[in-house]
C-alpha cells in the first residue's frame, strides 16, 4: 500500500471507536442489545484490523509512520502543538495490545454485561477508553499524550463507578481518579519544565535533542525524568500511588481486565519507554525507577498472598508484574520491559476474564473461601485459568517465561540495577508462584464450599474470546518474533547490557524459583487443596490483616492527607476572610446599638444631656481663661 493510504488508515484508527462512542451516547436508550453490541464490537474490529494493517507496513525502510490532523495551538513560533499521530515499533506493540486485547475484551463484555440495563452506556465508555488509550499511545507530542492520559483517567473513573448506586463504588472511582490525578499533576509540571528547558514538546525532537542540550547527570534531565516518573507511578499504580488499584476492582470484571490489567496501567511503562531519551541522561532516576519497581513487586506479592477476593489477588499480581516492567526499564532493558508488557497483557486479561466467568457462574461470589472444587464443576474456565496461572508463574515454555527471563537475565549486570535488584526479582518470582498456587488450590481443588447451583455460561461469544486469549497468552512469546517487531531501533540509544560476565548459575536459579514456589505452596497450603470439611477459616492474624490492606499504605494516606484536608475544610467552612470583613460589620452594628440605647424617649434625660453638654461647652471655652479675671 502506498504512503498516503497508510497515513489515512492510521488517522482513522482511533476514530472508529470515537464514532461508535458518540453513536451509543446519543441513542443510548433506544438501542437494543444486539445493535449496541454490534456497533461497539464492530468499531473495535475495524480499529484492530487497521492497526494490523498499519503494523505490517512498518518495516526496516519505513520505521516511522506519522499523520497530522490539525494544529491544536501554538506555544511559540518554533513549537506548534498539533493533533498528529506517530507510529514506530514501540507504539506498534502498544496499539497491537490495545486493539487486540481490547477487541477480545469487548466481545467478552458484550456477553458478560448482557443483562445490565444500561449496557449501551457501558460499551460507550469502553469505546471512549479505547479512543483515549489510542490517542495516548499514538500521540506525537506530550500534550496530546497528556490528553490521552487524562481521558484514560476519566474513563477509568466512569467505568470503576459504573454501578454508581452503591456508595463503595462511587468512593473507589473518586479515589482512583484523584490518586492518578496527583501523578498527572507531577507529569504536567514535568512538561512545563521540559518546555522551559528545551522549548520543545514533540517527543521525537526531545529524544533526539536531549543528549545534545544536556549531558549525563545534569540537573534538568534529573528533575524532568523524576517528574515524568511521578506521572508514570500514578497511572501504573506503583509504590507511592498504588492504593487505588485494589479498590478499582469495584468495577465490572471486563473493566478490570481491560483497564487494570492490559492497557491503562501499562501507560506509565509506555511513558518511560517513550521518553527513554531523557531517562538515559539521568542514571539516578533510572535507579529510582528500578527500585520503585522492585519495592512494588515485593509489596504487591506480599499483599496478594493473603487476599480473600479473587479479583484483588489478580489486582495485586498486576501491580507486581508492572513492578517487573518498571524494574526492567530502570535497569535499561527497555525492549525486555515492553515485551513483558505485551505478554502480561494477554495472560492477565485471560486471568481476569476467566475469573469474571467464574464469578458470573457463582452468582457474583468473589470470596475465595466460598469457592473450591471448581476444577470438576467448571472444567472450561478452570483449564483456561490454569493456563493463565502457568504464564503468570513463568513456568518454562509459557510466554511469561520468555519475557520474565529476558528481564531477570539483564538485571545482574546492568549498571543502574544490580545483584540486589536481581535477588528482589527472584524473590518476587517466588512470591508470584506461591500466591498463584494458593489461588489455584483455594478456587479449584478441595471441597466446594458453596451451596448455590452452578450456572455455567453457555454463551458462545464468551467462550470464543476466552479461547482466543488463551491461545494468544500461550504463544505470545513467539508472536513477537513472528511479527519481527524489532524494538532495537527504537531504543537505539540505550546501551546494550552485555550479560557475558554474569555467573552461569544465574540462569538455573531463575528457572528453578517457580518450581521451588510450587513445592512450598503444595506443602504449606495442604489443607486448602485436600480439605474435606465445608468451611475454611481464614487466619485473622494482625500480619494478614495488615497485608490485606495493602501494607498499611491506605490508612497511612488516609490519616496523612485525607483526614487533615477534610478537617481543614470543615474548620474553615465559613471562610476566614469573610468573617474578618463581617467582623467590622458587626463592630459597626455594636456602636450603633450603644448610641441607639441612649435615645429612650425620657424627656428629662434629654434635658439633663443638654445641660451637661452646655456645661462641657462652657468648660472648654473657658479652659484657658478660667483662672484669670475673665471680664464677664
Amino acid at each position, binding site marked *: 500500500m502506498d504512503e498516503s493510504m497508510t497515513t489515512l488508515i492510521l488517522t482513522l484508527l482511533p476514530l472508529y471507536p470515537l464514532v461508535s462512542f458518540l453513536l451509543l451516547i446519543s441513542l443510548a436508550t433506544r438501542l437494543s442489545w444486539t445493535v449496541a453490541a454490534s456497533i461497539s464490537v464492530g468499531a473495535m474490529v475495524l480499529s484492530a484490523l487497521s492497526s494490523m494493517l498499519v503494523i505490517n507496513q512498518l518495516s526496516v525502510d519505513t520505521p516511522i509512520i506519522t499523520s497530522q490532523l490539525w494544529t491544536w495551538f*501554538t506555544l*511559540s513560533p518554533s513549537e506548534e502543538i498539533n493533533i498528529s499521530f506517530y507510529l514506530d515499533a514501540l507504539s506498534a506493540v502498544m496499539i497491537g495490545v490495545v486493539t487486540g486485547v481490547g477487541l477480545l475484551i469487548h466481545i467478552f463484555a458484550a456477553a458478560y454485561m448482557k443483562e445490565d440495563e444500561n449496557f449501551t452506556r457501558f460499551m460507550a465508555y469502553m469505546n471512549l477508553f479505547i479512543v483515549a488509550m489510542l490517542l495516548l499511545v499514538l500521540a506525537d507530542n506530550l500534550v496530546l499524550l497528556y490528553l490521552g*492520559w487524562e481521558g484514560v483517567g476519566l474513563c477509568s473513573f466512569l467505568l470503576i463507578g459504573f454501578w454508581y448506586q452503591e456508595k463503595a463504588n462511587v468512593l473507589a472511582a*473518586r479515589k482512583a481518579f484523584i490518586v492518578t490525578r496527583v501523578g498527572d499533576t507531577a507529569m504536567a509540571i514535568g512538561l512545563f519544565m521540559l518546555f522551559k528547558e528545551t522549548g520543545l514538546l514533540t517527543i521525537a525532537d526531545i529524544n533526539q535533542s536531549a543528549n545534545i542540550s544536556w549531558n549525563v547527570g545534569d540537573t534538568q534531565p534529573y528533575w524532568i525524568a523524576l517528574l515524568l516518573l511521578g506521572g508514570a507511578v500514578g497511572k501504573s499504580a506503583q509504590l507511592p500511588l498504588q492504593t487505588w488499584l485494589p479498590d478499582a476492582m469495584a468495577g465490572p470484571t471486563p473493566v478490570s481486565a481491560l483497564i487494570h490489567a492490559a492497557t491503562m496501567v501499562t501507560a506509565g511503562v509506555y511513558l518511560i519507554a517513550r521518553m527513554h531519551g531523557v531517562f538515559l541522561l539521568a542514571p539516578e532516576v533510572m535507579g529510582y525507577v528500578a527500585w520503585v519497581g522492585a519495592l512494588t513487586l515485593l509489596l504487591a506479592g506480599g499483599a496478594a498472598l493473603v487476599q480473600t477476593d479473587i479479583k484483588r489477588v489478580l489486582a495485586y499480581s498486576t501491580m507486581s508484574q508492572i513492578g517487573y516492567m518498571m524494574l526492567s526499564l530502570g535497569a535499561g532493558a527497555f525492549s525486555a520491559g515492553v515485551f513483558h508488557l505485551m505478554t502480561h497483557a494477554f495472560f492477565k486479561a485471560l486471568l481476569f476474564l476467566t475469573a469474571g466467568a467464574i464469578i458470573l457462574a457463582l452468582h457474583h461470589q468473589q470470596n475465595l473461601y466460598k469457592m473450591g472444587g471448581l476444577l470438576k464443576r467448571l472444567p472450561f474456565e478452570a483449564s483456561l485459568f490454569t493456563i493463565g496461572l502457568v504464564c503468570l508463574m513463568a513456568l518454562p515454555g509459557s510466554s511469561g517465561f520468555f519475557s520474565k527471563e529476558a528481564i531477570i537475565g539483564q538485571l545482574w549486570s546492568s549498571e543502574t540495577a544490580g545483584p540486589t535488584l536481581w535477588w528482589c526479582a527472584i524473590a518476587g518470582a517466588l512470591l508470584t508462584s506461591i500466591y498463584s498456587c494458593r489461588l489455584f488450590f483455594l478456587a479449584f481443588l478441595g471441597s466446594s464450599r458453596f451451596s448455590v447451583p452452578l450456572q455455567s455460561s453457555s454463551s458462545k461469544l464468551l467462550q470464543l474470546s476466552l479461547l482466543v486469549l488463551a491461545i494468544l497468552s500461550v504463544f505470545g512469546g513467539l508472536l513477537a518474533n513472528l511479527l519481527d517487531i524489532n524494538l532495537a531501533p527504537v531504543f537505539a540509544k540505550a546501551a546494550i547490557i552485555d550479560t557475558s560476565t554474569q555467573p552461569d548459575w544465574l540462569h538455573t536459579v531463575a528457572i528453578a524459583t517457580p518450581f521451588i514456589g510450587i513445592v512450598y505452596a503444595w506443602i504449606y497450603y495442604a489443607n486448602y487443596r485436600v480439605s474435606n470439611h465445608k468451611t475454611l477459616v481464614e487466619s485473622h492474624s494482625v500480619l494478614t490483616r495488615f497485608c490485606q490492606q495493602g501494607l498499611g499504605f491506605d490508612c497511612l494516606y488516609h490519616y496523612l492527607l485525607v483526614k487533615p484536608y477534610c478537617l481543614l475544610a470543615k474548620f474553615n467552612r465559613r471562610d476566614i*476572610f*469573610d468573617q474578618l470583613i463581617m467582623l467590622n460589620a458587626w463592630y459597626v452594628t455594636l456602636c450603633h446599638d450603644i448610641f441607639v440605647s441612649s435615645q429612650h424617649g425620657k424627656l428629662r434625660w434629654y434635658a439633663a444631656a443638654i445641660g451637661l453638654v452646655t456645661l462641657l461647652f462652657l468648660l472648654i471655652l473657658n479652659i484657658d481663661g478660667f483662672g484669670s479675671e475673665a471680664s464677664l
Partner: protein
Amino acid sequence: MTITLVMCFIFVSACIAWFAEGIKENSGRYVALLSMIAISIYLVFALLLSESSVDYSQLQILTRLPWIAHFNIEYALALDYLSIILVFLTLLLAVICILVSWHEIKTKVGFYYFNLLASITGIIGVFTAIDMFLFFFFWEVMLLPMTALIAIWGHENRHFAAIKFFIFTQVSSLLMLVAIIVMSVLHFQQTGRVSFFYQDWLALDVPFKTAYYLMLGFFIAFAVKLPSVPVHSWLPDAHTQAPTAGSVLLAGVLLKTGAYGLIRFVLQLFPDASSNFAPYAAVLGVVSILYGAKMAFAQQDFKRLVAYSSISHMGFVMLALFSFNTIAYQGAILTLVAHGLSSAALFSLAGMIYKRIHSRHLPDMGGFWQHAPRMGGFALAFAAAAFGLPGLANFVAEFLSLVGTYQVYPIHTMLAALGLIGSAIYGMVLFQNSFQGSFPSTKIASFKDLSIREFFVCSLLLSLLIVIGFYPDLILNLFNHSHIAWLTDDVAGAGL
C-alpha cells in the same frame, strides 16, 4: 458607530421588554430573546465586513463625541481583540441567561428583563469605553441592575447578598475614581489640558512613586471584581442568592470586567509599576487558586461550590497576567472565555436542579443520573471542564497559562499546579454528590430529564467548550501576539 448602536438597541429593547410585559403576559422574554439574537447577528456581520481592512491588534477608536466639554470628557468607544472577544462572550451569555430564566421568573417579569438587558448594556460599555470617565460611568451602570437582580429575584437572604455585593464593588471602585481623577490632574499639570482619554494617558510619563499608587488604586478595584482572595467573600454570597440568570451573568461576564480592567488599565497603563508589583500579585494569584480550591471542597451548597471554583480559576488569570509572558497572556485570555462558558454552564445546571428539587444543598441530592441520564452526561462534561479535562477549553487555557508562567515563576506554577488536584477533588465532590450515589426517593418525588430548551442551552455551551478545547486558535489568532508591546517574549529555547 456600531457599538453605540448595539448598546442603544439593547437598552431600548430592555424598555420594550418591560412595557411589553405589561401589555401581554410572558411577552417580555420573547422580546428580550429576539432582540439579543438580532443584535448579535448584526454585530457579527458589522465586524466581518470591516474585519479585513482593520487590524484589531491595536485599539481602533470607533466614536469620539464631546460629552462634558468643560473637562473635555468625551463619549469615546474603541474596539480591539480583547473587547471583541469579551463583547461576544457577553452577548452569548445574555442569550443563555434569557433562555435559562424562561420559566424561573414569575414575579415582575418585565422589570427583570429590563434589569438583565440594562446590565448587559453596562457591561458592553465597560468593555468598549476608552474614555476613563465613561469607563467609570459604565462600571457603575453595570453594577446597579445586577444588584437589583440579586436583591429582588434572589433566594432566601438575597438582601444581605445584594448589599454586600454592592458595598464591595462600590468601595473598591471609589479607589479607582480617585486614581482616575489624579491621573487627569497629572495630565493637566503636564500638558495644561485635563483629559480622560486613554491614549493621552498612555503617552503620559508618570513619576514612579505616584504611578505605583495609582496602579494600586486601579489594581484593588479590579482585584475585588476579579475576586482574588482577600477581597473575594462577596462572590459566594452573591452567587448563592442570585437567580440562575444572575449567577450566569455574574460568573460569566462580571468577573471578566475585572480581568479586562487588569489588562487594559493596570498592565498597559502602568507597565513598570505593575512589573514591580508583579511578584506580590503572583502570590495573590497562587493563594486564590489554592484557597479557592480548598474552600470549594468544603462547601455543602452547589452554587457556593461553583462560586469558589470561579475564584480558583480567576487565580490562574491573575497569575498568568502578572507573569508578563506571551504564552501566559494567551492562556489568561483563553481562561476568561473558557471559565465564562464552563461556570455559566454549571450555574445553569444548578438552576435546573433547583427548579426540580428546590434546594441547592448537596447532601440531600444524589443519584440524579438514573432519572436524568442526559443531564448527568452534561453535568459530567461541565464538571470535567471545571477541573480542566483535556479536550475542553479550560485545559488548553490552564496549560498555556501554566507553561507561560513557569518561564517566569517556577515555584508559583508548581503551587498553582496543586490547584489542579484541588479542582479535581471539588469537581468530583460536585458531580458525585449530586449525580451519583443513591437517589433520595424519600425527599424528592420525581426528577425529570432535560427539556428541549435546557437541552439546547447545555449542548450549545458544551459544543463551544469542545470546539475551543480542540481548536483554540478560533480565539487566539484574533490577535497576532508577536507584537503586543508590553509582553516580554523571553520564551526559553535555551537549549536549542
